């Protein structure tokens, strides 16, 4: 435990890596002491939905390939999001988690990270490759999959199934009409059986809480 905490602290201090458009802002400290792993229950909230997604190579695959067999941390994003409490926060938390997970072989082999775009119009596989940068290829840590879909029709059952509210509007206030997306950050912790066990909002999405939850799942009989 102490080793994991140390790795995590190092990860936060070193959280200088950036993705496209993401500032290297240190994560704020957690404002409370979370309960210790295994002292609480993460109930089965719902089954993770399935549908077709595209990997960075553009090849179609079922999302279930990325939400089964391992503990999965999945976050919806759109790569042009600039809300500091939105997609960039998820990216930073994922980024901070990875070295902490890498430091513990037992976790490295049983956890994956998934970033799934709900803006397939702009977030093509090529755009997702740019967004991912070297993180999609870094060896030594748990896999981090960057996914998108063919179309808005393809992603809709996924966002609806997860309950990820997304609003797309056309702003006409000044200049030419422009498409605007709004959403509220939700990150999903999914167990190896494909059940959602926690849904994080920006208020408590933090590497320490996520790591404790992963440990709690791993301690289940």
């Amino acid at each position: 435990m102490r080793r994991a905490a140390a790795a995590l602290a190092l990860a936060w201090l070193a959280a200088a890596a950036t993705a496209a458009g993401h500032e290297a802002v240190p994560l704020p400290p957690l404002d409370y002491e979370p309960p210790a792993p295994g002292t609480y229950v993460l109930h089965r909230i719902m089954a993770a939905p399935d549908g077709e997604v595209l990997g960075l190579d553009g090849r179609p695959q079922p999302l279930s390939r990325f939400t089964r067999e391992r503990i999965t941390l999945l976050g919806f994003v759109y790569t042009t999001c600039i809300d500091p409490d939105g997609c960039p926060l998820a990216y930073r938390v994922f980024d901070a988690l990875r070295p902490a997970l890498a430091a513990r072989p037992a976790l490295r082999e049983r956890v994956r990270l998934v970033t799934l775009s709900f803006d397939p119009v702009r977030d093509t596989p090529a755009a997702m490759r740019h967004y991912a940068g070297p993180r999609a290829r870094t060896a030594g840590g748990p896999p981090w999959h960057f996914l998108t879909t063919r179309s808005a029709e393809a992603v809709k059952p996924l966002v609806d199934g997860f309950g990820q509210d997304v609003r797309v509007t056309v702003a006409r206030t000044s200049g030419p009409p422009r498409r605007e997306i709004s959403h509220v950050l939700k990150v999903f912790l999914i167990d190896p059986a494909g059940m959602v066990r926690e849904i994080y909002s920006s208020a408590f999405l933090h590497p320490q809480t996520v790591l404790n939850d992963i440990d709690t799942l791993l301690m289940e009989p």
Partner: protein
Amino acid sequence: MIVRHLLRATLTAGLLLALVGLTVPAAADETCNSPYVTKLIKGQEDYIYVWTLGVEGLGDGFDKLVTIDVNPKSKSYGKVLGSVAVGTRGEAHHMGFTDDRRFLWAGGLAEPTIYVFDIATDPAKPALAKTIRDMADKTGYLGPHTYYALPGRMLVQALSNTKDKGGVTGMAVYNNQGEYVAAYPMPTEGGGDGYGYDLAVNPKKNVLLTSSFTGYANYMRPLGDLVKDAEAMKKFGNTMVVWDLKAMKPRKVLSVPGAPLEIRWSLNAKDNWAITAAALTSKLWLVKPDAKGEWQAKEVATIGEPAKIPLPVDISITRDGKGLWVNTFMDGQTRYFDLSNPEAPKQTYAKATGKQINMISQSWDGKRLYITSSLLANWDKGGADNEQFLRAFTWNGKELTPTFEVDFTKEQLGRAHHMKLGSKSLKSS
């Protein structure tokens, strides 16, 4: 300890016996939603949804969700746009938005049933999307009261249980699809009385705070009978509970005598306190950590003259945490407390807004207030005092000015209870 309990019971019974037409519960509004509820309406609201108790012989007699146009620029301003009846009369009480604000969950205290209204497909015309009927089977709880959004889920605080219909109860969690997830009993050890009423979360501190009222056997009884039953009168909540939100485990039971009801956390990011009103003792209580970080409850103000039993039933905090509206049912007074120093709230304004008043909701900017009249079917006043209304006001910082009123009896609707605000902009895209 026993002496203290006896004194408390005697005080409670004495206060209630002195009542002519008692009261209780309530909750509100745009500044008082779960912190996980998105899309707060920070401009002009278009609609107000009123969860309304059915009255036998009045209209269809069923509980219903009533939609009223509250946009002054609308041609139908101040008019009822429509209503959705649920086909039963189950003591309609409170409501709560899902985190995505697409659905409004509501329920009655007389049944273990939850109604889910779709308010996003057409915010002007809510539709009953789902009825959840398994709460009693899954949990044994009765009388769902508070609906509090968690990410992807709804935390439901019940008031009673199906076994003895007393006040020992708990909380149930459902996912946003309406599927049961888990149940958490209110603590009956460590000073806990097992009762429930309201709940509210401070996510930054991982704290859930709950309050306590009474069970079905009491709140469904005609008040005249209830107050004559000394044993029944002892069965009111005197506690609040501080929970570890993440673990959903009680951390500390706080002694807050006199049925502490609505809980409001300050929305000021720098603050770490909540306030509540104890109905039977007419006191405001502050809940905050002491210098050692230990959660404590402290009586900080008196509401009206407790000897006259004003009965505070709903409170609404301003978005900056600097002011608190308090409705007192018996005297029909709407009071404003300056909360600049939450350790010593000061009443700075009061106005009679009805012969009986219960809920109070305010717009995000605090410029518009809405008040309704009904508490419980068997506890509302009788005769000419049984006004049933929604009254709208503007607030300029000094004076409440009436703007419109809907007479729920004249409109054949029922008893007006809990309110939530709506907007055309929340139509699903």
